[in-house]
Structures are given as C-alpha cells and as structure tokens.
C-alpha cells in the first residue's frame, strides 16, 4: 500500500522456546483506525511492545514512515511520532495530572540540569506555552477538573484518558492504544471513542487492541485478528463479522463475550 505508516515484515518475538509473535507481516494505512483483536495470549500486547520498542524483535523488521526502526529505543520511536498507551495504565502517581501531561513534550529547554537552574526567561516562556497546550489537551479529554489531583487518585477510566493526553502532547502520527475501553465506565468510553474519531479526522492514525467486539466492529476499520502469535485474518470490519476463521478462532464465543 502506498500510504503505509507502519509495516511489519516477518516480525517474530520468542521467549525461550515460546513464540509469542510468529512471523507477522502487516501494514497499517495512514489515517486508519485499525483494530487488533484476538484471544488472550494471542500475542497482541507482545506485538505492541515490539512495535513501540519496549521489546526487540527476534526476527523481522518494523518500518515506521519508511524507516526501519527495529533497533530504536521507545524514546527514539516516540520522537519519530510513534506514541503508545499501556494495557494497565502507568500514570506518574505522585505527580499531578497536569504535571503528567506537561512532561511529555520533546526538547524542553528546562529538561537539562544547567538549563533548569540557569536558563530563566526562555524556560519560563516555554513552560507557559506547554502549560497552555496541556490545558487544551486536558479540556479536550475532559480532564481539566482533575488537573491538580495526584494522578494516582483519579479513576481507572480517567487514567486511560490521561495516557492518551500525555501521548497527544508529543503530537505523534501513529497512536497505539492497548485496550482503551477495558475497565472504563460506559460514559467515559463514549467520550474516548468520540475523541479518537475526532483525532482521526484530524489526521491521526490509530492501532487499537480491544476485546470489546462491539467497540471494534463499530469503530475500527480494517480489523486484524491474531491467534497463537500469527495473523489469522485481515480485512474490513464487515468481512470480519462474516469470516468463518474468525468466528471459529475468536468469535466462536458469543459476540459480546
């Protein structure tokens, strides 16, 4: 595909003898909201960690925006425009929600030891700009009212939104969301979906792991399914709902399970 943002070429990741991800090749189109489904243990989160750089592949390569990023660290990949959230939220618990969000922008002049202590005016201006932007993002994700709370004290759903807020501060082009709706109350899930779709209309690409099939079928297109470390299906959400392999491998259980 010509507008590929992310391409995996035969990516594998083993833990000892166990192949968690086994020769996965796939392409994510820029501008899509791609759903990644599969039963527990299918290798979805491992694949996410390989894409984000938290794990290195034991085989194959990861190309992001035409560059092989297989050997880059997570921070280097974030700098290139590849952001991710975690299945279990990882807030900076003893920092305020606002600080969590203000941390994320790259290249902050005040992030060096000497800059922090010596560079006064420039850092203050930059901090003001970051703070303004942080409040915009918090407003967008309905978190403004908890801006001054310790991040450990907000609800699980708000933590999911906070992770998205942090990622957005880095202005990534591709955002990996690991089970954004899991354990989130329906009202917040609706907000999350609305925001994801709005961001998508403004050009952000999403790759989303989600167990909630209703969520995936309604909001993700295309859909990729994994089982036992391999891709077993790739197609539109309409195709997914009538695909015999999928029904057998994953949807064999009732749709809302």
């Amino acid at each position, binding site marked *: 595909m010509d507008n590929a943002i992310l391409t995996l070429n035969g990516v594998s990741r083993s833990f000892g003898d166990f192949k968690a991800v086994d020769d996965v090749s796939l392409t994510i189109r820029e501008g899509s909201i791609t759903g990644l489904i599969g039963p527990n243990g299918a290798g979805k989160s491992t694949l996410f960690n390989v894409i984000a750089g*938290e794990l290195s592949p034991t085989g194959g390569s990861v190309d992001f925006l035409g560059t092989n990023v297989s050997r880059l660290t997570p921070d280097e990949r974030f700098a290139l425009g590849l952001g991710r959230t975690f299945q279990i939220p990882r807030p900076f618990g003893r920092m305020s929600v*606002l600080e969590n969000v203000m*941390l*994320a922008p790259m290249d902050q002049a005040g992030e060096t030891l000497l800059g922090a202590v010596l560079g006064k005016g420039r850092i203050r201006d930059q*901090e003001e700009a970051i703070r303004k932007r942080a409040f915009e993002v918090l407003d967008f994700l309905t978190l403004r009212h908890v801006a001054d709370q*310790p991040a450990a004290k907000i609800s699980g759903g708000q933590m999911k939104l906070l992770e998205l807020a942090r990622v957005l501060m880095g202005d990534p082009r591709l955002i990996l969301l690991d089970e954004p709706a899991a354990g989130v109350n329906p009202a917040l899930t609706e907000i999350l979906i609305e925001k994801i779709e709005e961001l998508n209309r403004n050009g952000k690409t999403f790759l989303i792991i989600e167990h909630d099939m209703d969520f995936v079928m309604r909001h993700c297109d295309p859909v990729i399914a994994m089982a036992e470390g391999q891709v077993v299906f790739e197609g539109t959400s309409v195709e997914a709902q009538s695909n015999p392999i999928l029904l057998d491998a994953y949807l064999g259980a009732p749709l809302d399970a």
Partner: protein
Amino acid sequence: MIGIISYLVFFTTVASILGIAVLGLNLQWGNTGLFNGGVVASFGAGAYGTLMLGGPAQDGHLGGFGLFYPLALLGGMLAAGVLAWIVGKLTLRLRHDYLAIATFGVAVAFENVMRNATSITGGAQGIRGFERPLRDVLGDGFTYNAVFLAGVLVVLLLVYVFLERLTVSPFGRLLRAIREDETAARSLGKSPDRIRLISFVTGSVIIGLAGGLYGTFYAFVSPQDVLPILTFQIWAMLIVGGAGNTRGALAGAFLIWGAWTFSGWALSRFAPVEAQLYTGSIQFVLIGMVIVGMLLWRPQGLFPERLIVSQPGRNREKTQVEGFT
C-alpha cells in the same frame, strides 16, 4: 553561657554539613528514586579529596599539594563525582534493592581501601596536619568556628536554592517521572538511563561537598569517618524529614543530629555504668528503630513531598500528596 553558645555553634555546623549531604541524597532518592546505600563513599571521597589536595606535604601518604582551599574543596567534589560516575555507569541499570546492595558494597570497599592503602591514604592514621583555611587570620578559637559556621550556612543556602529551583523546573519533573515509572517515561520520549546518571552524580557531588566541609571542620579524616553508620544516619534524616521535600530533608538533618547527640549525652549521664560501655551500640539500635518506626507509621516523613500543581496566577502552588506508598 559562652560554653553553650560555643556548643550550639559546633552543633549547628555539623548538623548543617550533614544537612547538605541529606540534600544530595534527597536529589537521588527523594526526587529520582535511586536507592543509594553508599552515601558514605561520596562523603569520604569529598573529605579525603579535599584534605589530600589542600593539606601540607606529609610523609606516609599521597597528598600534600597545598592547593588554594576552594580549589581543594572543588577537587574533593570532583573526586566524589568521578567515583559516582564510575559506580553509576556500572550499577544504574540495577533497581531499588539491588542498587542499594551494590552501592553499599562500594562504600564498604571504599572504607577498606582507605584503611589499607596506607601509602595513599595514610591508612588507619588518616589524613592529618591539614591547616584549616584562614586559620592564620582567625586563630583556632570561637571566632574561627563562628566564621566557619557562617561559611557552611552560605554553602547550605546555595545548595538549597539550587535544588529548590531544580525541583520546580522541567528537569525536576523529569526526575519525578523517572522515579514514578521509568517505562512510561521512556514511552514518552525520555531517556531514563542518562537522567538517572546525571541525578546520581549530581547528588554525589553535593554529598562530596558535605564531606569536604566535614573534613575541613575537623582538619582530619580517617576510616572511622566513613563507616556505614553515617550512611544510615543520613538516610534516617531523609526518612524522618520527608523524602522529596527539600525543607523536610533539612529539618530531618537537625532533628536526627539533635536526637543523636542528645541520646549520647543522656546515655552517658543517666544510663547505668555497665550500659555506658555500649552507648554507641545503643545509639545504633535507636537509629534503626527510628527508621523502621517512621517507615511503618509515617513513611512520607514529617514534611511530606508536596504536589506541584498549577492554579490561575500561582504556578508554584503546592499541596500535600496524600496516600504516599
């Protein structure tokens, strides 16, 4: 009366010097979450470095360069920094308890080297004959101690301001993020390994500065000054005062040093004669109990870390963080 004032000057000097060391440890542990179990190695490197560089020529050990005092003190800080950089490069991939064990080992090794490398360090005799700066002007009496205290307080203030500015800066924010969750920080484009090393070395340089001042004050340093108990004392100060809170760290230094000297005095005065033989050991037990008790009942310390929040018009408003884990 003069006796009491004189004692207060002495007490405040030592407490302030230890307070500087606590501030250094607070940067490492309170802000960055680095469990440095070898505080005394940095302290010792600063003390030995300063006295060797600034002292007169003496046979029996390396040193006697007679450097201009501020240069000697800077040299001591540099020695602590270089040592920390090497240790940091080797161990910073370790986390929490493993880092604590490794750094504790380094400190014990440091003490043993100081004790046994006689030709370099003077061995058990230590480094003697150091002439304190400005002694020819101020003499050796009360005036000298008062002026020295003033100098120490100026240094303490500079370190305090430096660290307070650092805490509220984006760099301080970055340190806290790494303390809270390194993986998440890395996923947001930060490089934790580099930042941890910077924090570890900077904190150690500050602890080395305290060591340099300590050596200067006594004009003497020996392996007895770099025993593990000092590491525990400095940790107790930080835990009691409040890790992550600069003012708390300072308050802890004065409180624990006060309690330490008071308990020594009280034991020597009121304890049965048989028990007085064990005054030092009893104090060790007491300080251990203080650390354990605080961790059990008030782990956030007397002055807990404050949350940095932003409210309209007041961008440094802070409130207390509840639910410290």
